[in-house]
C-alpha cells in the first residue's frame, strides 16, 4: 500500500469579490503519495495556484467554502494558526510563484536561513544549521560564499537554486513547487527541475507537488499528473498514460497545441484552442469546458461523471459513458 501524504477531498476555495464569489477552486479531489512527484497543470485562471496556496496559507479574499485537505489524516482547514505554523517548512513547505523575489532583499542568505531555523528547528545550533546549508548549497552547485551574499547579487538561476535550498532545509515531507521554473531560461529550467528530483531521491524532500502551466516540463518530472480547467479537475493519471493517451478533450487540445520537435507550419499546420475560459463568477452548469469543446452535446450541461480507466487514470467527461 502506498502511504498517503495528502488527501484533498471536494475542496472549494472561492474568492469573495465585491459581494459575489469567484469559484476559483470548485470541488477538487486528489491524493498525493509518499515518494512521488504529483504534477498539477492548467492554464491561467484554472485555479491551480489558488489550490496550493490555500493549503499553506488561506488568506482573504480567499475563502474555504467546503471540502477537506488531510495532511497525514489531519484537516489543514481545521487546524489552528499555531498548528499550521508548526507544519510549515518541516511538514509542508512551498516555493511560491515569483519566489525569485520572495527572499528578503535586506538580509544576507545566511541570516535568512538562521532566522528560519530559530523558529522551525530551534534544537539545532547555528553551526549545525550553517553546515547543513553549506552541504545543500554544494548539492545545487553553489559555493558556500552565497551565504554571505544578498539575494539581488544572485542571477535568476542561482537565486532559484538558493530558494530551493532554503525551502527544503528542514527536510519537508511535502514540497509544493508553484511555477518554480516559469521565469527561468530553458537551460536553467532543466537544471532546477533535475535538482528537485535529486532532492527527492536523496530523501531531503518526502514528496513533491509541482504546479505549472507548462505541461511538457511537468511531464519530465511527474509520476502522476492532474489537469485542471476553470476550477475543476478534468483528468488525473500516471504521467505517461495521460500524455500518451489523453482522454478529456481539453487535455487533448492542450497537448496537441504544443508543437513536437521539428513540426513546422509548412509541413503541418497546428491549431490552438478557440475561445476563452468561462467567467468563474458565473460558470456554465455541468462541464465548464463544454462551451469550447468540439464534442459537446446536450448532456454536457450536467455535472460530468468520473470515468475510471484503470491504473488510476480518471477523466471527467460525458464522452466516457456514451
Amino acid at each position, binding site marked *: 500500500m502506498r502511504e498517503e501524504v495528502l488527501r484533498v477531498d471536494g475542496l472549494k476555495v472561492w474568492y469573495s469579490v465585491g459581494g459575489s464569489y469567484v469559484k476559483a477552486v470548485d470541488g477538487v479531489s486528489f491524493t498525493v503519495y509518499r515518494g512521488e512527484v504529483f504534477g498539477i497543470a492548467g492554464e491561467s485562471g484554472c485555479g491551480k495556484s489558488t489550490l496550493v496556496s490555500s493549503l499553506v496559507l488561506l488568506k482573504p479574499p480567499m475563502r474555504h467554502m467546503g471540502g477537506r485537505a488531510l495532511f497525514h489524516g489531519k484537516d489543514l482547514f481545521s487546524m489552528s494558526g499555531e498548528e499550521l505554523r508548526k507544519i510549515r517548512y518541516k511538514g509542508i513547505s512551498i516555493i511560491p510563484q515569483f519566489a525569485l523575489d520572495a527572499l528578503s532583499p535586506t538580509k544576507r542568505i545566511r541570516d535568512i536561513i538562521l532566522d528560519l531555523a530559530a523558529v522551525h528547528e530551534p534544537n539545532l545550533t547555528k553551526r549545525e544549521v550553517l553546515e547543513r546549508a553549506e552541504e545543500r548549497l554544494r548539492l545545487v*552547485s553553489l559555493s558556500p560564499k552565497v551565504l554571505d551574499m544578498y539575494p539581488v547579487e544572485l542571477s535568476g538561476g542561482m537565486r532559484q537554486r538558493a530558494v530551493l535550498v532554503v525551502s527544503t532545509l528542514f527536510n519537508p515531507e511535502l514540497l509544493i513547487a508553484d511555477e518554480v521554473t516559469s521565469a527561468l531560461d530553458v537551460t536553467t529550467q532543466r537544471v532546477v527541475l533535475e535538482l528537485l528530483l535529486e532532492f527527492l531521491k536523496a530523501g531531503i524532500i518526502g514528496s513533491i507537488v509541482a504546479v505549472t502551466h507548462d505541461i511538457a516540463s511537468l511531464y519530465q518530472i511527474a509520476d502522476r499528473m492532474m489537469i485542471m480547467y476553470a476550477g475543476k479537475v478534468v483528468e488525473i493519471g500516471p504521467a505517461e498514460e495521460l500524455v500518451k493517451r489523453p482522454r478529456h478533450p481539453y487535455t487533448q487540445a492542450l*497537448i496537441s497545441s504544443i508543437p513536437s520537435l521539428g513540426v513546422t507550419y509548412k509541413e503541418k499546420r497546428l491549431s490552438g484552442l478557440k475561445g476563452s475560459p468561462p467567467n468563474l463568477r458565473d460558470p456554465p452548469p455541468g462541464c465548464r469546458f463544454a462551451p469550447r469543446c468540439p464534442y459537446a452535446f446536450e448532456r454536457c450541461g450536467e455535472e460530468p461523471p468520473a470515468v475510471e480507466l484503470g491504473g488510476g487514470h480518471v477523466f471527467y467527461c460525458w464522452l466516457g459513458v456514451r
Partner: protein
Amino acid sequence: MALLRLEDVTKVFRTGLFGGQEIRAVEDVTMEVKEGEIVSLVGESGSGKTTIARMILRFYRPTKGRIYYKGRDVWRLRGDEVKWYYSEVQGIFQDPYSSFNPIHRVERILYKTLHHFHPSLGGRGVEERIREAIERVGLHPGDVLGKYPHQLSGGQLQRLSIARALLVEPSLIIADEPVSMLDASTRIDVLNIFADLRDKEGLSVLMIGHDILLANYVSDRVVVLYKGNIVEEGPAKPVFVNPLHPYTGMLLESIPRLDKKWEKRLEEKAEEEEYTAYRLKGCRFAPRCPAARKICFEAKPPTLKLEERSVACWIYSDYGEKS
C-alpha cells in the same frame, strides 16, 4: 536586397554607481531580414534580443554600427521619413495587457492608429478598415468592438495588437516575445497569423523569442544569440536538426518535450556570476560550455560560413572559409 539589414551593430550600456561598468549587451551583430520571410531571433535572458528589437524600432540608438531599412539608414531618417519608417515597420510587444490605453474602447484605439497614418480616411472607410483588420487576425468584430481592453483575454489582446499593426499596412513587423505571456493553447494560433500573412501577403516578420520550438515551427531562418553575440544562424530546419554551436545544442536538449523524457542530467557548468561573461575576451559561452578549451577564453571565435549557415565557435576553426 534585404528589407532590413543590421551591420556590426553594438550597444553598450553603462551600469554601476558612476557608469563605471560597461555591459556590451549587443556586440557586432550583422543580420538580415528579406522580403516575405519570418526570421526568429532566439536567445535567453541577457542575450540582447530585446535590445536589438528596440534599436530597430528606434527606441535605443546603437553605440556602433548601422541599421538599414530598404537601403536607408534608420537612424538618419528625419521628419516625415520617420513617419514613413513607422508606416513600414511596426512593433508588437510581449505584454498585450499593457499595450493598450485602458480607458479607450477597442474601436477608438484602432481608430487612433489608423487616423495617425491615414488622416484623409473617413466615415465608412474607417469602419471597414477596422473590421477588416480585426477579421484578418481571426477575431469576430462583434466580440471585441465596444469593449475595453480589460474585458478581453490575453490572446484576444495580442491579436488586436497585430490588427493594430496591420492597419498601417506595414511590410515588416518586429514582434518581441509576442506569445510568451499567452497560454500554450492560444500561442500557436498567433504564430499561424504571422505565417498566414507571410504566405498570402508577403509580410516579413522578425520574431524575437526564447522558445526555439516555436521559432522552428513558424520561421524560415533562425538567428541564435548568446549574451549579445550571434553564435549560429541559418535556415530553421537544418539549425534545428543539426545544431552546430554547443549552445544551440544545449538549448535544444533542454526543451521539455512530450514525446521524450530527459535521460541523463544536462552537462553544464553552473554560472558563478551573472555579468562576468560580458567581460570575457573570448567566447562568452565558454564558462558554461562543456567543450571549452583554453583558446575559447582568450580570443573571439571566428565565424565559419557554410552555404546558408554560419557558426561562431572555435570547434570549427580548422575548416572552411573564415570571416
